[in-house]
């Protein structure tokens, strides 16, 4: 459970950028205010729907391997793999999917524990790989069209009105995105903990429910992680992918929220990180083709490709180390301690090139949106 809460914390910490990076980059919100707002909405989002039945890697891994005491150690190894990969990508300032890290962790630990027969690769391809390939493109196209439309309308507006208006609008779109993130991601950890409670006999399968303390714990973990603010990834998502203006930020956030909510509603699993990254890139293209920094996009896509295998390798290593102690409580404690040491080392390394929230503050920057004036604005109504 501690492992699950720790993963939830890194999930919030790592994915803060998804919801607030564009708002911070365009100066719609001060960095600290943005993460606090996002944290509050992530907390609230965790209570909106309880899809705990959608346990980790459902359908991808044979659940028989997750049963019993060894199953719990396997889940812990998976959580450790995912958490460490989250911290590695945070250190490298690259946005990557926490959901894919968790799935990769489960697959890696399962492969070494039970062999390839316990992994449904077709399901992995169908529910993880294909959506991962499609989602950035879908959101990118929607954001491109939205940004293009926004700039067409801006031509009829005063520059200051547009900047002020879209900055205000971004507060709403970022809030909706944070709420959606809390709803989607807190459920994963609730699923992990519920699985542990069922295996331990604390919850009856006949009268299945999620205890309030589990909901509160998961909501608090993701909210605290979000409030901690992953400034390194926020900087990449908001400033390094493309140079954002308020209309682009609003277009990126609205498109991301629309894609995430539509896919949630229709039951198509998508990674929030990949959707938002696609949205930010698309909104960059919507303004001017040259404004996207493709080398950063390339680094990000490379990290996405390596997320599942890397988290899997880390989880497999954790499982093997635990196996040396009989895959029991002793093994679990050893791998947990090693993970804590790894987290401390990565945090120490990250401090050397720390990014402070004050460096990201753009609220005092006066944005002057100057769209190309092809012809004088036509009078709408006199």
């Amino acid at each position, binding site marked *: 459970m501690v492992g699950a809460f720790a993963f939830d914390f890194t999930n919030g910490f790592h994915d803060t950028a998804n919801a607030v990076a564009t708002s911070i980059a365009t100066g719609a919100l001060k960095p600290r205010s943005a993460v606090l707002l996002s944290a509050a909405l992530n907390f609230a989002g965790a209570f*909106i729907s309880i899809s705990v039945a959608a346990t980790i890697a459902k359908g991808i891994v044979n659940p028989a391997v997750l*049963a019993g005491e060894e199953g719990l150690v396997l889940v812990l190894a998976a959580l450790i793999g995912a958490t460490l990969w989250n911290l590695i990508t945070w250190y490298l300032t690259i946005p990557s999917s926490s959901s894919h890290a968790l799935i990769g962790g489960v697959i890696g630990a399962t492969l070494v524990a039970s062999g390839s027969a316990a992994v449904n690769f077709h399901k992995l391809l169908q529910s993880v790989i294909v959506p991962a390939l499609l989602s950035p493109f879908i959101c990118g196209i929607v954001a491109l069209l939205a940004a293009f439309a*926004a700039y067409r309308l801006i031509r009829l507006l005063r520059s200051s009105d547009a900047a002020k208006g879209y900055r205000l609008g971004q507060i709403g779109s970022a809030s909706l995105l944070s709420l959606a993130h809390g709803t989607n991601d807190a459920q994963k950890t609730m699923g992990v903990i519920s*699985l542990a409670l069922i295996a331990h006999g604390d919850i009856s399968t006949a009268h299945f429910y999620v205890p309030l303390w589990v909901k509160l714990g998961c909501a608090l973990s993701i909210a605290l992680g979000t409030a901690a603010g992953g400034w390194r990834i926020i900087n990449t998502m908001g400033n390094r992918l493309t140079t954002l203006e308020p209309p682009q930020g609003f277009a990126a956030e609205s498109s991301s929220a*629309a894609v995430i909510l539509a896919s949630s509603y229709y039951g198509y699993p998508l990674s929030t990180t990949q959707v938002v990254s696609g949205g930010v890139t698309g909104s960059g293209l919507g303004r001017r083709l040259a404004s996207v920094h493709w080398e950063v996009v390339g680094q990000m896509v490379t990290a996405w490709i390596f997320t599942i295998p890397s988290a899997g390798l880390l989880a497999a290593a954790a499982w093997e180390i635990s196996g040396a102690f009989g895959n029991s409580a002793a093994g679990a404690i050893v791998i947990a301690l090693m993970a804590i040491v790894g987290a401390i080392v990565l945090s120490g390394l990250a401090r050397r090139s720390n990014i402070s929230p004050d460096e990201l503050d753009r609220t005092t920057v006066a944005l002057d949106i100057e769209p190309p004036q092809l012809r004088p604005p036509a009078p*709408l109504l006199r």
Partner: protein
Amino acid sequence: MITTATALIDWHELWRIVVAALIGGTGVVMLFGLLLLGISRGTTATRPAARYTLYALSALCGVLIAAVAAAGVYAMTQKPSSGKPSPKPAAARVAPARPAAMYRRATAPRQEPRLTVFARGSWLHPAIAAP
């Protein structure tokens, strides 16, 4: 390649998502732009009738945006995976194609799950499948 893609992608679902996202994402941005335009032009309009018309247009856009946001929150509460899944019918609960022991190479003995289910091409957790 097309056959493989068809087997992996539910084109109908994907199409619905794309359409919903296009309407929601692009639509909200355009409505918000019109809202700003109405307010901006409304404040500078000289004739009261024009001013009220523009403010009314802005208000309408605001209401539509709020409705889309409310639909988004509703969609969050209506996720297909929400809530406890209903148990599969008895016919769906078939014996595993391979014994569960085949999935394990672990050294220590452990308790076998009460029920292993393999139905409709996906594995379900025994706890979920149990009646």
